[in-house]
């Protein structure tokens, strides 16, 4: 098992180097002069320009800049934002909880609704429920997410006035930032209404971000269930006179779990990508909105650092899923591909 994990880790190293190289090259290909971006509209004198160029190491040859960058990266330093002058890594970890809160909430929403719906559709295969669920899930899968988010805002915030339009919490609440997760912090603060405000801000972004994963989970659960339910051990279980609930949940569902877990693992990248649109539309102060704003502001240091951090997160999750497989299914471990 240890050998299997080490093998997977070894593959990760060139991928990680590739990621840093890609992000680095990207930033240097973006047209526009970073120093002028930093200087803003007032411009900058030639002496100051040369000084800044030197201060940011931009007067060095590219390969030297890259090696310096990697060296700093290995020490946990991703440079400073050109705009806010804050260290990129600090900004990232300040905004990260907001994205995690939203993504987890969307993931839970999708799992809680999608998996049971998929199981029921598989059990009642060919019924009206099955057909409507499959039609609905394909619709959800085809939904332009930004449009769906706007529709939700128009309906629930505009017409019905049930939920706030944007942000994470009403501006009237102030409390200590303990965990960065507003649901927890507002609960801890004990202020009346704060927790409720945080929840009501979270509802629409959760639905918007969770819809595509929800549709995916429902479809995948259904097909995984149908596959296992056709197998012999299910017939045996039925023949033994077990209750339909036991057969479905304890026997069929447990064996359908592997493909379902794969799909959940794959959704992490989808959620992080979806966060870009969702956070932008709902003004949710997370990583996605930060990246979009930085791209528009030409804040190269942030774009570069953010790309590396996000991609590293994705490959780490993929590695975890891989290792989980190895644990669940020895056949995968043995194959050692």
């Amino acid at each position: 098992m240890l050998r299997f994990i080490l093998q997977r880790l070894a593959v990760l190293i060139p991928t990680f180097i590739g990621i840093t190289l890609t992000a680095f090259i990207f930033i240097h290909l973006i047209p526009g002069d970073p120093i002028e971006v930093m200087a803003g509209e007032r411009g900058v004198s030639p002496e100051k320009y040369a000084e800044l160029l030197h201060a940011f190491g931009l007067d060095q040859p590219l390969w030297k800049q890259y090696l310096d960058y990697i060296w700093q990266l290995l020490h946990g330093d991703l440079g400073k934002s050109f705009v806010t002058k804050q260290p990129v890594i600090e900004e990232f970890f300040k905004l990260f909880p907001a994205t995690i809160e939203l993504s987890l909430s969307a993931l839970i929403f999708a799992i809680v609704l999608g998996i049971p719906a998929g199981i029921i559709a598989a059990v009642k295969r060919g019924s009206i429920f099955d057909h409507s669920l499959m039609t609905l899930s394909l619709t959800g899968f085809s939904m332009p997410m930004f449009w769906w988010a706007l529709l939700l805002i128009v309906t629930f915030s505009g017409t019905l006035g049930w939920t706030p339009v944007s942000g994470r919490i009403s501006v009237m609440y102030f409390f200590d930032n303990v965990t960065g997760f507003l649901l927890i912090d507002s609960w801890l603060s004990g202020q009346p209404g704060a927790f409720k405000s945080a929840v009501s801000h979270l509802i629409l972004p959760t639905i918007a971000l969770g819809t595509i994963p929800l549709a995916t989970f429902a479809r995948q659960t259904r097909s995984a269930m149908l596959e296992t339910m056709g197998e012999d051990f299910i017939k045996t279980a039925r023949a033994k006179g077990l209750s339909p609930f036991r057969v479905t949940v304890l026997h069929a569902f447990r064996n359908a779990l592997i493909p379902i877990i794969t799909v959940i693992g794959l959704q992490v990248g989808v959620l992080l990508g979806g966060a870009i649109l969702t956070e932008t539309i709902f003004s949710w102060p997370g990583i996605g909105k930060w990246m979009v704003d930085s791209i528009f502001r030409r804040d190269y240091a942030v774009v570069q650092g953010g790309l590396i951090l996000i991609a590293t997160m994705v490959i780490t999750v993929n590695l975890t899923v891989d290792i989980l497989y190895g644990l669940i299914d020895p056949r995968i471990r043995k194959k050692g591909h």
Partner: protein
Amino acid sequence: MSIQSSNDNDEKIQSALMAVLSSFWHEFKANRGALYGLIFISILAFVAIFADLVAPYSPIEQYRDFLKLPPIWVDGGNWDFLLGTDALGRDQLSRIIHGSRYSFYIGFIVIFFCLTIGIFLGLVAAFNKGYVDTFIMRAMDIILAFPSLLMALALVAILGPSLENAMIAIAVVYIPHFVRLTRAQALSELGKDYVSSSKTMGASSTRLMFINVLPNCMAPLIVQATMSFSSAILDAAALGFLGMGAQPPTPEWGTMLADSRQYITSDPWLMGIPGLFILVTVLSINLVGDGLRDALDPKMKSNK
């Protein structure tokens, strides 16, 4: 005599082909959703091709006396503008009709790049186990590590915001899926007897790649291409919505949506109509994709 027999052979091949096609069509037709999807896409394709003839007005002509007119089924609608007009007085219906062209344009260009580059790299990787294979597959892993929309956004930032650059960015992001799929398919074909016998007969590796192996890898690739067609439309619309895709006054559906964003509460149909067209188009293509999968490859059948 020999001419006679080759004619016979041709006929046999032809009738076999017809049998395959008709069984394919039979399977496809059985899927009601796929059929409806195909009908909608055909109508849309017709409208896109003849947009200049079908559209009542020019998509960029501004009728200053008719600003933000609602569609005909809402109070205050005007029969001259069936789907109403936008904030600049442009006819929505004409913009939607002309916009359908962009959707097909985006879809076709993206899958063209994905198929050509993806198949080429996938076959090269499958046929050159070792350094070449490892290098290609690691490069694909790297692209896949970045969330696709983020990668596309960064690429468009480098190339400059335009519809063409958005399409290139989307193609780059999708290519790894095609490479992986082609490689996996080709590897499973490579072990089969017909490939070894071709090899023994002295077939060159180019011939093996493109004449022998590739045709047997096509079924899943066609399904993947259909699904990528619809995702490309969605992603291009998302980039347009973020201001990184088609630029105004192009009547691309995502850009139209972005333009109407400030009127979402006062004039919701301005964003409702283009969004609905994106949804129905993407849904139709996905339905066709489902139908193709069931008809082309029984192994991948979605347990219908």
